[in-house]
């Protein structure tokens, strides 16, 4: 790009590169991708997270059977909830992108943003879940159907993000990744069902049965708090990511304008020498 830019700036005055000197966006609260709404949302997220720490770690009581480790539950349930919501949103947005009447790259970007946030929360879920498993079952990992399906979801969406990063035009990226996201919707129930059937035949009781938690009012409240806090965080992250992706795409399109100008300049400089070019290529026969 740098080379072509130099070449352009000294050709004509009407090329789009003249618009290149863009006024930087006015410095506002919440950065370039923030609005008043996301600022309020972010503040609410931070406040509810602080409340969650307060209630989850200090105010809520320990469980009778689980002891202190029940406090992990708030994190674990919150993150897994967000991860599943995120992948659901990815699937719906992908379907809307593929459907001719609602197709828009915005849906594709929402799908991508949501999957990215979902993958992070899925990783956190697996981490918190295995710690919880260590404390309540004595194992970091059990071959429970739900646990295994979660791990597969994680890997599947890592693959989805890899497909998004393959390159090509925006439309191509959107079509490819939307199809992969919908195939994941096909795949996950099959994985879950097969793992469930597998464990069901080989192990009498699922380990999940031994982790019954009697939830007191204050614990229930903390759990709800966790769901709210993580949902707010999810919305904030996806909104910002979606805007960053939109800017990235817009920048790619701008890059095309500059590249077009450069390409056209190639033809206008070559015009004067075209006669000699013809003779030269003719001579090589």
């Amino acid at each position, binding site marked *: 790009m740098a080379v072509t830019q130099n070449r352009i700036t000294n050709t004509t005055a009407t090329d789009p590169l003249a*618009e290149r000197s863009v006024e930087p*966006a006015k410095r506002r609260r919440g950065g*370039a991708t923030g609005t008043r709404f996301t600022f309020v949302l972010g503040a609410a997220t931070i406040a509810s997270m602080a409340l969650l720490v307060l209630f989850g*770690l200090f105010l809520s009581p320990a469980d009778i059977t689980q002891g202190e*480790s029940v406090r*992990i539950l708030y994190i674990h349930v919150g993150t897994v909830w967000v991860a599943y919501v995120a992948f659901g949103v990815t699937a719906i947005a992908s379907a809307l992108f593929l459907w001719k009447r609602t197709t828009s790259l915005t849906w594709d970007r929402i799908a991508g943003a949501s999957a990215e946030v979902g993958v*992070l929360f899925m990783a956190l879920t697996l981490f*918190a879940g295995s*710690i919880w498993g260590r404390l309540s079952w004595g194992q970091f990992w059990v071959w429970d159907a739900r646990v295994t399906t979660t791990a597969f979801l994680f890997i599947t969406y890592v693959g989805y993000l890899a497909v998004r990063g393959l390159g090509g035009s925006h439309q191509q990226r959107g079509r490819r990744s939307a199809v992969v996201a919908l195939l994941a919707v096909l795949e996950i129930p099959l994985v879950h069902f097969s793992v469930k059937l597998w464990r069901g035949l080989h192990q009498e009781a699922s380990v999940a049965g031994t982790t019954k938690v009697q939830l007191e009012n204050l614990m229930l409240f903390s759990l709800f708090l966790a769901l709210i806090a993580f949902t707010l965080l999810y919305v904030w992250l996806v909104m910002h990511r979606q805007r960053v992706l939109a800017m990235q795409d817009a920048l790619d399109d701008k890059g095309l304008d500059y590249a077009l100008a450069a390409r056209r300049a190639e033809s206008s400089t070559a015009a004067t020498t075209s006669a000699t070019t013809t003779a030269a290529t003719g001579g090589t026969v």
Partner: protein
Amino acid sequence: MEDIGFILSTYIATFVGSVALAWYYLRRGKRLAEQLPPEDMPWI
């Protein structure tokens, strides 16, 4: 109370992970905004 390390580690990992992602998005947004005119950012 020997589980306190385990419990705290899940909280810390979750918050560090979320903040890292949020910070990355904001920084990336700021950098891109410098190269784009305001009409490409309809949410402003």
